[in-house]
């Protein structure tokens, strides 16, 4: 019994310590961010390309099919109430407020987050970060901050593209396949979806972008510098980001409803 209590105590202390270190790490990243944004924007643009542009294919394919599924589900369920014309509104709310930011963040964690964590972890394992330190170059602003900012900028853009392609998928299924009136589909969406709903989606994707990018650079930077350690960091990036995104989604939805 005392063994279990001791384990709980040590694990709790370790959790608090790690959480504190994570917060300090976040502050360090934030402290260097303005200088990198203003002085070395080229580094950030490169990372927006790495994290964002290279994730476009997976985001667009996923968005198209998620939108298609929403079209099928929306049509079959709304048809019971003779409200199949509202399938556009149904899909728009679902995509813009929830599915767009959440699924994009999960896909981002799987595609860009793992790439970030493993890249930084390998840089550490192969002494590249130590070499930078020895060249009097601080790796936090030079390596971590551009990658963090790249992810933060890329996430809302990817979420917006996901939602747009998703709506296209819904249109293809509902209008082209199932015969919903195209005018009703788009007009009802235009009338019902408010700028506030779009802002909610943008805000969520921004928060998820911060969470996913921060977790990825933290895990990579703090990975054990071995092949196994980098592998673990990559896995933890996906798992922790997925949990964080879903928790934040609940909290933001609860506050903004």
């Amino acid at each position, binding site marked *: 019994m005392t063994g279990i209590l001791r384990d709980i105590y040590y694990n709790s202390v370790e959790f608090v310590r790690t959480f504190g270190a994570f917060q300090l790490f976040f502050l360090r990243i934030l402290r260097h961010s303005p200088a990198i944004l203003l002085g070395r924007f080229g580094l950030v643009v490169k990372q927006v390309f790495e994290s964002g542009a290279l994730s476009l294919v997976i985001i667009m394919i996923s968005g198209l099919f998620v939108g298609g599924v929403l079209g099928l589900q929306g049509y079959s369920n709304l048809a019971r109430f003779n409200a199949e014309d509202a399938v556009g509104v149904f899909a728009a709310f679902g995509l813009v407020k929830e599915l767009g930011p959440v699924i994009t963040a999960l896909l981002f964690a799987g595609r860009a987050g793992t790439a970030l964590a493993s890249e930084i972890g*390998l840089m550490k394992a*192969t*002494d*590249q970060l*130590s*070499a930078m330190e020895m*060249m*009097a170059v*601080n790796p936090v602003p030079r390596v971590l901050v551009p990658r963090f900012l790249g992810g933060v900028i890329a996430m809302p853009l990817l979420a917006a593209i996901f939602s747009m392609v998703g709506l296209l998928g819904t249109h293809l299924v509902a209008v082209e396949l199932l015969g919903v009136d195209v005018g009703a589909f788009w007009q009802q969406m235009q009338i019902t979806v408010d700028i506030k709903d779009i802002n909610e989606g943008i805000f969520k994707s921004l928060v998820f972008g911060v969470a996913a990018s921060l977790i990825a650079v933290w895990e990579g930077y703090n990975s054990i510098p071995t092949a196994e350690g980098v592998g673990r960091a990559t896995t933890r990036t996906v798992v922790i980001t997925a949990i964080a995104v879903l928790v934040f989604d609940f909290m933001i939805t609860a506050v903004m409803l």
Partner: protein
Amino acid sequence: MAELSENLIEIHDLKYSRGPRVIFEGLNLVIKRGEITALMGPSGTGKTTLLRLITRQLIPQHGTILVDGVDISTLNLSELYQMRQRFGMLFQNGALLTDLSVFENVAFPLREHTKLSNRLIRHVVLTKLHAVGLRGAADMMPAQLSGGMARRVALARAMVMDPEILIYDEPFVGLDPISMGVIVRLVRRMNDALGITSIIVSHDVAEVSTVADRSFLISDGKVAASGSPEELRVAQSDLVRQFMHGMADGPVAFHFDAPGYEEQLLGRDAE
């Protein structure tokens, strides 16, 4: 103008341990300005760790490390980075930045710390690459280089800022005899021509002996012997003789601590 001290790096009563394992205890060592100093010793004695302590990549639990009279453990981050601009370091595995070309790797410190024009940077980088025989590889990526080539590029990068102190961690590993000869001569020439102080960690007794002015043999967390390569070669200490002449028998055990060979093979150690 104050006269420069003869001792560039002084280590006093250094203690450093990793977990329960004591790496150094009571280590004292002086590296003289303008000399090539070799740090030698059996595997696992902490030679690379000592380099990391000298450059404050690690912090000792006890003792002082003075670089040009300054205790490096007292420096804040910006002072430390200023100090590190006086160092160049060649890492064991080269540690080239894998997302940059050979040219950009060598140009990296110049781009970060100077406002030189692209034309001047190109001139300096090509000069350094030429010195290590890899001017023709300027456009290649690190993944396209052999281990030896990567280390030569890393050497060019280490010297691109014309540092006062050049640190080489196992510089001769993976080099073919021709490259090794060129690099040994380059180390010597840079030291003599530019007045650099060099610190070399190496197992390669033969090569180090041709280039070092002074060698320190580290064992059991302390300096076991020091002197010129010639003095170490004729030293009577069992440890020094075993190491310098590569003998299997001596105070340094070849085998890591283990139960008896026969007992373990017959499974008696588990009983």
